[in-house]
């Protein structure tokens, strides 16, 4: 599924029905109208295999997800996933057996990881069914949206070749 080299993408990951797990989705929603032309913004449920497909043929990706590491609620972590494996943060808060960390490592093992791949992880507090975002997480969502917008505006990768798009 190669759809042109140099695709750039922001993917917000989460479950809208599980409290702070929606943080990534909310960042994507805020960014819909705020990014430079050519940057695709999407929301994703976080299933590793489907995420892997979404990343196929992408040159630069920013992924935003909720996490549970024991840090204070609303803590934002920025990780350069192209440079090194994601730290284990006590399992992604995703309700799936395979989540973002697995998707990235699988993409790396298959030679499909975007050349530039940044993960923003927002420390969640409550993942109760049907709960809204907790206040510290709402605040972090706004901050991450601002940082991602700045990062994409400055990103120089547009037009470069994506790595090994296979199927």
């Amino acid at each position, binding site marked *: 599924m190669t759809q042109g080299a140099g695709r750039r993408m922001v993917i917000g990951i989460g479950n809208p*029905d599980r409290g702070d797990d929606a943080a990534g989705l909310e960042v994507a929603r805020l960014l819909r109208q705020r990014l430079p032309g050519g940057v695709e913004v999407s929301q994703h449920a976080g299933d590793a*295999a489907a995420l892997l497909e979404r990343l196929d043929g992408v040159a630069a990706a920013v992924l935003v997800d909720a996490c549970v590491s024991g840090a204070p609620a609303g803590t934002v972590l920025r990780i350069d996933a192209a440079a090194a494996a994601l730290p284990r943060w006590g*399992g992604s808060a995703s309700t799936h057996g395979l989540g973002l960390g697995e998707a990235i490592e*699988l993409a790396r093992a298959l030679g499909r990881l975007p050349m530039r791949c940044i993960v923003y992880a927002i420390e969640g507090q409550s993942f109760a069914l049907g709960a809204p975002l907790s206040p510290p997480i709402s605040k972090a969502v706004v901050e991450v949206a601002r940082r991602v917008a700045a990062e994409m505006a400055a990103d120089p990768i547009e037009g470069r070749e994506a790595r090994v798009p296979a199927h």
Partner: protein
Amino acid sequence: MAGRTIKVDYLARVEGEGGLKVVVRDGKVQSAELSIFEPPRFFEAFLRGRAFTEAPDITARICGICPVAYQMSAVHAMENALGISVTQPLRDLRRLLYCGEWIESHMLHVTMLHAPDFLGYAGAIDMARDHGEAVRRGLAVKKAGNEILALLGGREIHPINVRVGGFYRAPRKRELEPLAERLKWARDAAREIVRWTARFDFPDRERDYTFVALRHERDYPFNEGRIVSSRGLDIPAAEYDEHFEETHVERSTALHSHLRGGGSYLVGPLARYSLNFDRLSPLAQEAAREAGLASRCTNPYRSIIVRAIEVLYACDEALRIIGVYEEPELPSVAAVPGAGIGVGATEAPRGLLYHRYRLDADGTIAEARIVPPTSQNQPSIEEDLTSFVGGFLDRPEDELRRRCEQTVRNYDPCISCAAHFLRLDLDRG
């Protein structure tokens, strides 16, 4: 002291999380308990007071892996309550949608979750480093399933195009044609995947299961059929409650299903296959024979081959449907609200999924009951562990632990449907 304890805190590579405790005394497995916590109970309460038209979209949220199964059991139950029957093109589209879900769900399990057990890897990532082509092929076949879901369901996850009486929008014939090209490739690839799984090394373990699955007069079952068993049960879905019961087990918020007075039973690929081999397409039957399977399979470890055969069948059936598809005049049949009781039983990738609703005169849901396949299989998973793990007790601790996990994964338990956390605790005294 001949007893020992093996504890696995977290059982990976199942959909969701749960806990497992195996107790060993004097060299024998005394008991095996799977403990899980179950969201469907929450959904049953949540459905009360909602309109009958909302059930497909609400229940689709129970599981991100098998939303179509929840939608299908819900719409069939509502149509049963309201006396609606759908036209042939709509029936075909429902089968096509189900093909998409089986392809997606089975390919995920075969390639990413179960194959590492047989090839000796901790998980799909380690396996992908050495078997990249097999993983790429599995994911590319899965993508064919995603594309069916995206087209018919309106999107890949939590499809929104299904309604009581049919669909909100039926696809044009020409929209299905590009799908056919990918499906032809996927069908060939699935045949290779059947061969690939057939070469794995399987523990020589069998049990005399009571298989339970739908059986239809002509088709390999997705949406329709009577509920039959390998011990002679043959009933319409409306009689489900007369023959099956759920009991609460303290360690788990999931209910355990049993045959009334008759013990555990098994639903899912092994049961469907063994009760419906003659309903598979000639190509799928041929692939099964080539893989060394008889028309009945009682070795649960070989379920990985059966899943691959079902993927091959689903590709074949999807192509057949696309070939004969005629656009329906209307995308749905009108559904007029009314009082009634309706049941629906369809074949989720993991097995029989039963819904029962009672509706008030204005179509409001007064009662809802959902019995997911993993609840039905729980007693059988525990009995497999009790029967099989004893044969592995002389193995090193790591291998024993891995065998326990593999035995649970034979069922592709959808613990996010039926459960939340899974930990493995093996107590040897």
